[in-house]
């Protein structure tokens, strides 16, 4: 057999591609369930980490069960039925218009206190960034925040997932004195008020992405949260 004939070369290449494609897709299909569990557990781990609960990934489902009391989906500021909050793909939702967008909200009970956990999704410099921010019962003060990214520059934009950056968000505020939603301003080094945090040197575009992501995602929840948290909390806030 002449292995250098053109016809043989084509035949060989075709057969090779078919065999490789078949075996790889077989492997991918069979491993998918295991991978999905990992991704799910990691998501639970991030959600919990935004209310300052650090658990191992394998223990995340159990802790998630015990802390997260309710998971609801909002659309146009109203809670809707028949949607699994955990399964909502936020990366797709943020491209939709405000009326169509589904926004999941997790309500946690930690040591008797209620916290509202809002998932965030936005764009950094190189790719998507995402995170979770938890609000105290006054729906104004940030209790904790956690961020992650797909492909930001290590040492620069990638620093958003470090404690140094995340810790800054604690006790910052989202609503101004008129209870209008203003978000959190990621500043270039002169953060002083309770509405501002310091950005990352050399990671300006990623830092701006974090700011935009908070504005864009949290605004969906403001009216609902004001109602849900009850008038007492809001009143307490005004008197503060």
């Amino acid at each position, binding site marked *: 057999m002449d292995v*250098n004939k053109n016809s043989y070369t084509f035949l*060989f*290449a075709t057969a*090779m591609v078919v065999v490789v494609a078949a075996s790889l897709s077989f492997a991918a299909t069979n*491993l998918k369930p*295991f991978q999905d569990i990992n991704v799910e557990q990691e998501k639970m781990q991030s959600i919990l980490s935004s209310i300052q609960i650090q658990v191992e*990934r394998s223990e995340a489902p159990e802790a998630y069960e015990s802390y997260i009391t309710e998971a609801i989906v909002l659309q146009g500021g109203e809670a809707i039925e028949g949607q699994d909050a955990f399964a909502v793909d936020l990366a797709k939702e943020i491209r939709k218009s405000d009326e169509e967008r589904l926004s999941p909200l997790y309500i946690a009970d930690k040591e008797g206190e209620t916290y509202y956990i809002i998932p965030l999704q936005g764009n950094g410099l190189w790719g998507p960034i995402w995170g979770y921010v938890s609000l105290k019962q006054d729906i104004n003060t940030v209790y904790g925040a956690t961020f992650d990214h797909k492909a930001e520059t290590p040492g620069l934009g990638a620093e958003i997932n470090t404690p140094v950056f995340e810790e800054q968000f604690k006790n910052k505020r989202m609503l101004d004195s008129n209870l209008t939603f203003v978000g959190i301003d990621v500043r270039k080094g002169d953060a002083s008020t309770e509405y501002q945090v310091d950005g990352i040197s050399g990671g300006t575009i990623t830092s701006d992405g974090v700011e935009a992501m908070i504005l864009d995602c949290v605004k969906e929840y403001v009216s609902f949260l004001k109602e849900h948290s009850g008038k007492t909390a809001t009143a307490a806030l005004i008197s503060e």
Partner: protein
Amino acid sequence: MADVLEKKEEAKDLLVDKQPKEPLFSKKNRKLLNDPLNDNNPITVQVLGICSALAITVKLYPALVMSISVLFVMAAGNVIVSLMRNFIPNRIRIIVQLVVVASLVALVDQVLKAFVYDVSKELSVFVGLIITNCIIMGRLEAFALGNSVWRSFLDGIGNAFGYAWILLAVAFFRELLGSGTLFGFQIIPDAWYLANGGFYSNNGFMLLPPMALITVGIIIWVQRARNTKLIEE
């Protein structure tokens, strides 16, 4: 005269038949395993695969997982290419090698994502970059295409171990001096640290890629000083 010649020919045939089969671990085959560990180490002598040696040697565990992944890809790749060596059309042989390596790496990546998710996140792009690891393509092209399956397998294992031990050695020093741990277990006692009134502090510089390069350099230095075969005129 013709008779004699014929007899000679017969004797030759017999000789070939009688020649004992080469043992699995003959001296020549053992050399395939041993050579890459020292005299012909892929990293320190051939200076291949440096990229991953710098990037993922901050901690021992990822370095170990990376080594095992490369071991699998290298051994399986060598065996598969060696099995097909008489059927691969010469003109597309590089493409065929690339496809073999790429599919093995894709497989490894999927397995890591399924069973050691955290490590796979840490290794991130470097698993995919095994495809471009010069050691692997080099061994396929230079060895597996022209040698039997068993010898190719040994060559693959040998080179993977040559790669692995350097990776682990570098990771050992970087983790010990940079984080004070080995495989995540604390080695330097808490009381030694400055923060607790001691005298010791981890060297943060060890965590940065330049120190990997310097560590590899020191290993090459020690190796060249001890191994007379490597000393150039």
